[in-house]
Every structure is written in C-alpha cells, then in structure tokens.
C-alpha cells in the first residue's frame, strides 16, 4: 500500500478537553477517504492539525513519509496539502475572480513578483476563470465575495481549493448549505478527481448517501477517538456507528 498521509498518536487538547485523542491513521495515495462522526467529534480539529492551523499536543503527521508536524500551514500547502474550510473562509472584499486568482497564483509559484502588472498575467487570469466555471460561478466573477449567498460562498471555497492543485485535498463539509440541485454538481467534480486517481481526497461530510457513494474507505471519529476505519459497508454495519451517529433516519435520505 502506498501511504501518502499518516498520523501517529495524533492528539490535541484545549485546556482540559481532549478534542482529538491518539489517532493513528494511514491514507492511501489516490483514494478517497471520508471522515464521519458526531458534532464535536474532532473532525475539523483533525484537519487543522494535518493542514497546520493547529499544532498537536502529542503525536506526528507524516506526508509522503516526511514528518511535517512542525511545519507551518504555508509550508504544508507548498508541499501539497490543500484544504477547504467548514466555516466559509474567503477574502470578503475581493471579487470571486480575485479570490480564485490568489490560489492560482500560489499554485503557479508567482510569489514575489513586485512589478509586472496583473492584467498582463493572462495565464493566471484565465485559469482562475476556468475554476470558477467549474463550480458554476462564472456569472459571479466580478462580484465581491461578501455579497454571495451562502451556497455560492461554499462553491467559491471549493474553487479556491481546486485551484491550488495540491496532491491531497482536505474537504470539510463541502456541500453544507448547498442546494439540492447543486450538490450533484460538486459531487461530480469530486468524483471526477477521484476517478482520475491522480490525487488523494479526504472528505468530512454528514450526508451519508454522498459518503457511501464516493468513499473508498471511511474513518469514524467519536469523542476525539478513532472508533472505526474501514470499507464503507463495514462501517455501515457497525452498531456503535449506527447508534452514536446515524440515528434511525439515514434510510429516508433521498
């Protein structure tokens, strides 16, 4: 098995509260892994430690075999770990296009260009437009991000992540608040990436149908602990998961 991301004894505590506790996980290259778990289980926190927003109190994170525990978010992004945020996290007073363009610019490693005028950098501009089109935001290109409806912001968030073209994509509830009609579109985007088998995706979601449809494997967090990790069917059969997380309604989901 070709492991791209690995955590060892990954733990973090806020004050006395242990949000993530000794999680050991290996994620195989070019697969899609989902993380599920009740609210407050530590899913987002787990992401934060992988992408570098939070420093673990204990344990390590390995990316392609390299210990990245001490690296800053910037360094990790440059290594190839990209993420989207659960609470929409964009540049509110820049236009959609500029938002995405910043991601493209980073991906193309145009970091310290002080003097060429932006309008000259056609390639960057075009690429940014492409990504916007991919998430069906092409008609909002020139709109300031603050003025978007909630679902639109979510799409922008995803476009920014895609534009980074990182080897691994961490998606934190990408479809929360997205309308029924748009979810399949995002699903398609994710599915395409998965099917190309060129990148690794880690997905946090509460929409079980979607998870079952996409995942190669699922891990379950519960009170910060790794409760289960395995094939989708296996997980769905797990009693504890049923009780603690799903309740009785998942069958009704359309």
């Amino acid at each position: 098995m070709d492991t791209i991301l690995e955590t060892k004894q990954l733990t973090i505590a806020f004050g006395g509260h242990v949000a993530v506790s000794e999680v050991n996980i290996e994620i195989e290259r070019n697969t899609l892994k989902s993380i599920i778990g009740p609210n407050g289980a530590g899913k987002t926190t787990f992401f934060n430690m992988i992408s570098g927003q939070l420093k673990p109190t204990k344990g390590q994170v390995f990316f392609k075999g390299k210990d990245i525990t001490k690296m800053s978010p910037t360094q990790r992004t440059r290594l190839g770990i990209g993420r989207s945020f659960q609470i929409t996290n964009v540049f509110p007073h820049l236009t959609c296009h500029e938002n995405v363009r910043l991601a493209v610019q980073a991906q193309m490693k145009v970091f310290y260009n002080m003097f060429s005028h932006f309008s000259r950098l056609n390639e960057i501009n075009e690429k940014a437009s492409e990504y916007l089109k991919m998430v069906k935001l092409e008609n909002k290109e020139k709109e300031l991000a603050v003025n978007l409806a909630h679902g639109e912001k979510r799409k922008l968030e995803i476009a920014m992540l895609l534009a980074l073209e990182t080897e691994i994509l961490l998606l934190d509830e990408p479809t929360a608040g997205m309308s029924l009609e748009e979810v399949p579109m995002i699903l398609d985007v994710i599915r395409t990436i998965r099917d190309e088998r060129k990148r690794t995706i880690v997905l946090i979601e509460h929409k079980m149908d979607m998870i079952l449809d996409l995942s190669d494997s699922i891990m379950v967090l519960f009170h910060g602990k790794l409760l289960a990790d395995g094939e989708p069917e296996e997980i769905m059969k797990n009693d504890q998961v049923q009780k603690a997380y799903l309740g009785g309604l998942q069958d009704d989901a359309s």
Partner: protein
Amino acid sequence: MTLLKVDNVHTYIQQYHILQGVSFEVKQGEVTVLLGRNGAGKTTTLRSIMGLNPITSGSITFKGETIGAWPTHKIANAGIGYVPEDQGIFGGLTVEENMKVAMKKKDDATLERMDWILDLFPDLKQFWKKNGGHLSGGQKQMLSIARAYINDNDMLLIDEPSKGLAPIIVEKVMDSINQMKDKTTVVLVEQNFMMASTIGDCFYIIDDGHSVHNGLMNELKHNEELKRQYLGIA
C-alpha cells in the same frame, strides 16, 4: 389562522434588486418550508421579515400588525425568534453568555425551557463555559438554535438548521420542532429534503427573488415534475 403574511415584498440590497415580489402566508401551528436553489433569495426573505434587510415595497403582517417598517429589535420582541444562516454566534462570549444575552426573561418557564434545551443538546451543557468561537461547526449550529428556543416566541425563522449537523442531531432538531408545534409556528429554510419533507406542512418555492410555487408538503413529495424543475431532485 394566518400568523404571518408576506405580501409581494421587494427588497433591494444596495442597488441590487434581490427580492422581486415574494408572497406567502404562514398559518399558526404549521411548519412552512421555503425551498429554492442557492442565491434564490430565501435568506433575504427571512432577513426582510426580521427587518435586517429593509423592504422597499409590499407588506409584512405579523399577528395582524404591519411590521414591515419596524426596527429589528421591535420585530424580535413582537415574538419572532431567528436562527440565521451563519449561526450568528458571539464568538468572544461563552456559551452561557450567548444564552444570557438572548434570554429576555428569567422566569420559571424560561428555566424550564433551558432544561429542555440542554437535554436536547447535551454538548452545550458540556461546553457551557467555552467560548462560542471555539465550538465545532455543529455545536455552533446547536447553540444558535438553542438561543432561539430559549424565549417564548410565537414564531421561529430558522435558516438551514441541518447544515453541519450529524444525522442524529438533525433528527433531534426535527423532534424539537414537532414538540413545539402547538405553541410555536415555524418558517424553515431547508436544503435537506428529507428533513423538510418530514416536518413541513406546506412549502413555498422561491426562485430568482420570486415566490413561484406553493402547496402542501405531501403533494410535493410525490410531484416529481416540480421537484425536478425547482429542486433538481431526480
């Protein structure tokens, strides 16, 4: 009895004409669901009712009074609770303080409701002294709902409560709405069709700033055509 009547409301945000004639009625004791795609104007509709986005024409009547031009706090005090789309948690305040700010009275009924809420969302009890900003996404959503439940409101406007909630909590929220039904009327914006169809009594579809269709939820459940047209559900 009609509790809330929204009649041909138009709302501008800056120079943009966002709501272009939204009308609907909410009957006492019913759960009315607003549906529609992203950017259709659902949130703006709720905000207009709350007086957060002032309407430019049309009228909004609540309990027989025209509240369209009232300031927000007066509308809230008339008995409308609001769960905003972005949760509106005061990040620098603790969970307790968030609840305290929301609490209008401190009588027995309120304390009783408080107990009920904490039973509903034990997470809040666990993190009672924690900063609202440090909660997980779902916990924030719970807190936001809890804040609206704490007062004795005649009506609740709830914007996408299920987003970010684990299925088991979604179930609880649905339960809670059902439990309150006799006292409190609910206007719900929801993308989770399972949830909407389970607890909704009637529905309105908003599209591009207009209310385009309405009916009973039971009808919609079986009207594949409508679902496909407006909701993209095949």
